[in-house]
């Protein structure tokens, strides 16, 4: 049964069937092979997405939409510019800080890339050229799935079957996310020096910082409410997502006054369709996961890997090497849906902390969107700017190295990932 499912999935995928449908077709083939009723397909689909935690996904997507449409992003950028604009690669530094700020409210790389690109691409391009500017925006946007709240973390926690909590994962993402951000800022400064980019930002003045801080304080407070509420145990991730949407709506409508009621249907529809793409993958994969569990695939794989090594570190390195390859070819949501239910129990048999494994896994898959040949973010940015993949890859590789580097540091030093969630009791 398992062989038929796997072969079926690859054949249908290679024939150009959307991955979600290929999973459904593979599940159908598995049901036929196992002599199981087709009703299971519809049942499993419904139950897999009838989930309160998964509801956070459209909320954080919608919050991101409202932040851009409500002019909130511009105020955040102005604030960042007064603080760190006048350092080497100032606009790049502003992009990274803005990306971190945006990632603290929104949850996906693609949405964040669109948001950052819509405001920062033009001014950056004039100073640094299009390829470098695009690479910085893509890399900063890729903090979306790493810093909380993160759609990737919500999907992972849901698929991991209760071995990790969403709040615990959110707390785990803060240190690696900040490490990546700081390392990227350092790299931008070095590249700016080497290439002789002019310094463009305003001189640092406390009065200007305070003025911009006053304009932006409600926005700067947003991540505190959203993330603080979740990791502090006040709200669930889903409730926090709804509050983020309400908050972004109120700020955009009453404070910045740039959000219009006419913007809402488009924002809601876009969030709905993107949610459906992820949800359909999860729904069709549910039957495949069920068939794998009937065939005891995780247990068999576990026996096989334990036969190869009994070292948790070697196991982690093997899985991460595999995930680097997977990340290059498969879109992140599909990778989570197919591999989290298999690898999470395996990591547990090796005694690896579930939060540690989850965070390293997420960091690894997240970088995949910046690596060819199937890097979603590369395609989006090239579509936005007209660059070729090769032009973008030439500029983005230092940031890819940084993200993989932080992933490896977190792999070898679990304490970096775990101290904050453990301090909070997760």
């Amino acid at each position, binding site marked *: 049964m398992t062989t038929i499912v796997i072969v079926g999935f690859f054949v249908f995928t290679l024939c150009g069937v*959307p991955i979600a449908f290929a999973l459904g*077709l593979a599940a*159908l083939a598995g049901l036929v092979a196992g002599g199981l009723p087709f*009703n299971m397909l519809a049942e499993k689909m419904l139950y897999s997405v009838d989930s309160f935690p998964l509801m956070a996904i459209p909320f954080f997507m919608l919050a991101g939409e409202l932040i851009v449409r409500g002019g909130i992003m511009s105020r955040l950028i102005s604030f960042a510019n007064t603080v760190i604009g006048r350092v080497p690669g100032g606009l790049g530094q502003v992009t990274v800080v803005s990306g971190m700020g945006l990632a603290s409210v929104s949850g996906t790389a693609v949405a964040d890339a669109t948001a950052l690109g819509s405001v920062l691409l033009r001014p950056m391009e004039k100073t640094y050229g299009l390829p470098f500017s695009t690479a910085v925006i893509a890399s900063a946007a890729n903090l979306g799935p790493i810093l909380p709240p993160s759609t990737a973390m919500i999907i992972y926690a849901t698929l991991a079957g209760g071995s990790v909590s969403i709040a615990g994962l959110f707390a785990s993402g803060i240190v690696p996310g900040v490490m990546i951000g700081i390392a990227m800022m350092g790299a931008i400064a070095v590249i700016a020096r080497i290439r002789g980019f002019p310094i463009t930002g305003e001189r640092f003045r406390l009065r200007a910082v305070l003025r911009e801080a006053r304009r932006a304080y409600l926005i700067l407070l947003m991540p505190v409410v959203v993330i603080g509420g979740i990791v502090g145990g006040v709200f669930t991730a889903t409730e926090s997502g709804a509050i983020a949407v309400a908050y972004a709506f109120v700020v955009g409508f009453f404070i910045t006054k740039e959000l219009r009621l006419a913007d809402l249907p488009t924002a809601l529809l*876009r969030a709905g*369709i993107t*949610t459906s793409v992820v949800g359909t993958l999860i729904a069709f994969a549910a039957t495949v996961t069920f068939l794998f569990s009937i065939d005891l695939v995780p247990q068999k794989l576990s026996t096989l890997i334990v036969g190869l090594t009994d070292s948790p570190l070697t196991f982690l390195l093997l899985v991460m090497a595999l995930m680097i390859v997977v990340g290059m070819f498969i879109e992140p949501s*599909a990778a989570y849906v197919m591999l989290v239910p298999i690898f999470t129990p395996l990591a547990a048999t090796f005694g690896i902390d579930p939060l540690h494994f989850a965070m390293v896994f997420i960091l690894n898959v997240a970088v995949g969107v910046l690596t060819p040949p199937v890097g979603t973010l590369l395609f989006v940015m090239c579509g936005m700017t007209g660059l070729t993949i090769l032009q973008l890859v030439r500029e983005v590789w230092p940031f890819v190295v940084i993200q993989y580097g932080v992933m490896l540091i977190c792999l070898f030093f679990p304490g970096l990932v775990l101290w904050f969630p453990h301090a909070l009791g997760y």
Partner: protein
Amino acid sequence: MTNLFDRVLRRFDRVLELAVIGSIAVMVVLVSAEVFGRYVIERPIFFANEVSRMMFVWVIFFALPLALSRGRHVGITLMYSILPPAPARLLFRFACVASVVLLVVLLAKSFELLIDNWDQRMNTLPLSAGLFMLPIPISAFVALLHLANMLVTGDRAPMALEIAEEDE
């Protein structure tokens, strides 16, 4: 005939778009109001969880055909660019027919489950639990119409893109 089919498809899409927009709006309002009710006026909304979950299921399935027609479902289209036009067209038709088979099974089985569950009540409201299942056969039906349209017109661009590009 094609124009009429297009018009009907667009009408179906418009209804689904409104359903998706309405469902997300209800989710946001219900969940926010529940938090407000719980912390501020200490009166939680007892049906918020169940109804918002149902709205979420509606969003996922009602938007499924919309994502299909906009090419938003993720797929690997490498073979289409490698193969010459004629085999690529054949492969595309095979992908469409395979998807049709899946959706026909899904339509039939989800409709059976819908009928079976229609008399069951939701936990918190006097409504049918079958409402959770309702969007699956509807979305399968509209997605089938889209696939039929793609098969007839041979328009392979929208079925699956390798990127989740922004559509507006």
